[in-house]
């Protein structure tokens, strides 16, 4: 297998990140000690203790991690290596660690782990490294030390209940604008706002109205062609994304998710269908709902993959002609390892595309894209580390490309952006698409 080319191998520079630098400058060892113990004693229990005392230090989780594999198997990137450099040390020193230690801990927790949970499938004891790293983030959050870019998105969540500072009227304006555009092509198309009792509430992540409004257009077109009885909320609660989950700001996570679920229940819909996003699925389906005390989501959550599966299986989307270019599939961790949608993803891919070329490993064993878990949201200062930290993904993609794949299907926003950076950095020359892009392209449209 050919090695992907690497561009300008610059040395890693010292990162300037105000969110961290300023936060660290305000810390003292006393304060750190107090916060760490408060979190460890007050917010964790037998789970953390058992994970820490059961780990036999065997290193078997190492090769699960794309960071470890991509950084020449340097052990400081291994899952257990990252735990050693953070939580073990905090426990060993009973919380009394230095501000510089916290600087390194925040870097590890936020920019060197995607919480992709692949290592949990490798550990013979099923030790939940992602949870442990999440606790480190929680501690850093309580210390006021979080990378600036992602912290900004959390501020936005807190103020606007969406991730991208989309203001009150911008949201319905964007929907109306997309509706008008789409009516050029589908004269009867509506984006029904606030339709009580609709079958489905469709929710998206805030970057869609902000930068990728065409995705809303496409979704509306698919709903129209498939004849779905759907709606979108006109006010807060439309955004299903959640960066607070990744900064350990559980309180804000709870607020966002409650707003989302309450909006759906206000609209009396039967189900929430969400766009092609992995982390949002994790938040709505696995993490946020549980923080709120619902063992399962209070309203059924259907990820776009599952929804397209349903539509295609029921022949509700007439296809003109299958997508010609050979595609390969990226399994987003949060919906495949975290939601079991691997087979449905393949059904949809085969229903839409002529040639599907698998990457290896795949399905629940797939390597993460290295963007998830809030890592890409920590912004440009960490981009180089992120793309270099996923050389294995580039190799996987390269391998699929040598076997003919031209297009990568990545049904997750973060994966999408992360893979784009990887393909640019390693000169892979492949296109990346959502399922929505492909369905929109190949479905039958009115003349």
């Amino acid at each position, binding site marked *: 297998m050919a090695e992907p080319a690497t561009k300008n191998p610059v040395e890693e520079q010292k990162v300037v990140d105000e969110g961290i630098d300023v936060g660290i400058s305000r810390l003292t060892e006393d304060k750190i000690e107090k916060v760490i113990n408060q979190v460890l004693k007050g917010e964790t229990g037998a789970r953390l203790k058992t994970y820490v005392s*059961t780990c036999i*230090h065997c*290193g078997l989780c190492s090769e699960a991690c794309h960071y470890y594999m991509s950084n020449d198997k*340097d052990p400081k990137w291994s899952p257990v*290596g990252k735990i050693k450099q953070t939580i073990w040390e905090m426990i060993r020193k009973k919380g009394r660690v230095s501000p510089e230690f916290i600087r390194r801990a925040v870097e590890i927790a936020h920019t060197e782990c995607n919480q992709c949970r692949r290592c949990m499938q*490798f550990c013979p*004891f099923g030790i939940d490294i992602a949870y442990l790293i999440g606790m480190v983030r929680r501690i850093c959050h309580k210390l006021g030390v979080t990378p600036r870019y992602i912290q900004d998105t959390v501020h936005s969540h807190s103020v606007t209940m969406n991730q991208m500072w989309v203001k009150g009227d911008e949201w319905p304006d964007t929907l109306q604008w997309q509706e008008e555009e789409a009516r050029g092509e589908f004269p009867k198309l509506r984006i029904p706002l606030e339709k009580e009792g609709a079958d489905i509430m469709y929710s998206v992540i805030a970057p869609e109205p902000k930068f990728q409004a065409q995705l809303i257009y496409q979704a509306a077109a698919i709903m129209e062609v498939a004849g779905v009885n759907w709606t979108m909320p006109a006010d807060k609660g439309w955004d299903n994304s959640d960066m607070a989950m990744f900064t350990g700001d559980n309180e804000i996570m709870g607020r966002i998710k409650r707003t989302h679920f309450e909006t759906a229940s206000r609209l009396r819909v039967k189900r929430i269908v969400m766009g092609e996003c992995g982390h949002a699925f994790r938040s709505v389906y696995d993490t946020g709902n549980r923080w709120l005390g619902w063992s399962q989501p209070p309203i059924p959550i259907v990820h776009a993959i599952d929804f397209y599966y349903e539509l295609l299986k029921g022949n509700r989307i007439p296809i003109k002609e299958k997508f010609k270019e050979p595609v390969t599939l990226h399994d987003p961790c949060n919906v495949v390892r*975290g939601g079991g949608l691997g087979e449905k993803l393949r059904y949809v891919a085969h229903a839409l595309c002529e040639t599907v070329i698998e990457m290896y490993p795949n399905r629940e064993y797939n390597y993460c894209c290295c963007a998830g878990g809030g890592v890409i949201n920590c912004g440009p200062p960490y981009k180089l580390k992120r793309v270099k930290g996923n050389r294995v993904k580039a190799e996987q993609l390269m391998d699929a490309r040598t076997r003919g794949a031209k297009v990568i299907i990545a049904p997750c926003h973060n994966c999408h952006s992360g893979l784009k950076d990887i393909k640019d950095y390693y000169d892979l020359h492949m296109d990346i698409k959502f399922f929505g892009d492909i369905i929109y392209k190949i479905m039958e449209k009115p003349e």
Partner: protein
Amino acid sequence: MNDIYQFVSGPLAWVAFILFIGGSLYRVIAMIAEVKKKEPFIFTYMSLKYSLRSILHWITPFATYNWRRKPVLTVVTFAFHICLFVSPIFLLAHVTLWDESWNIRWWTLPDGSADIMTLIVMASCVFFLVRRLTQREVQFVTFVSDYIILGIVAAPFITGFLAYHQWFGYPILMILHVLAGEVMLVAIPFTRLSHMLFSPFTRAYMGSEFGVIRKSKDY
């Protein structure tokens, strides 16, 4: 010499077994009680089916993705753990002791097989040691305590092997062997050897999370 032997194999053995059994019960009960108190939601997700699915996969050689990826380690660790349990429990000399003191007996291993099993345990310990010393990812997370733990596990087998073959200093070796065995028993609940106690629970929880919520595999 005989007095010392009587002491280590008498009162001290009692102490060791009490600490081992009592300590193990304490650790497990304390863990469950803490879950009840602080994280009771965990019980909501526990599923017998997925717990067993996970545990059975992980205690079967090559039944998990990672066991298949690491064939040598898999063979060694399974051989090690099986011999570790089987040889002391079914060793004729040990069963005889139980028989003499409590009048209970069970099936025993032929001495030759027990000898081979002991050799397997010792060789595996050497393998783990070499791994710790040479593999960077293991070395990085190794503490002095890891060597001590390995030593604690190897010691009863080394001393037992030497005592059985009676190459030298039988009485003293016998005393050391009994002591080493007692140290190992006591170490199980109070060191990372407690993975024996906790692994069924961590596996069951992760298996349940993956089965019930994530609908995918944790193996």
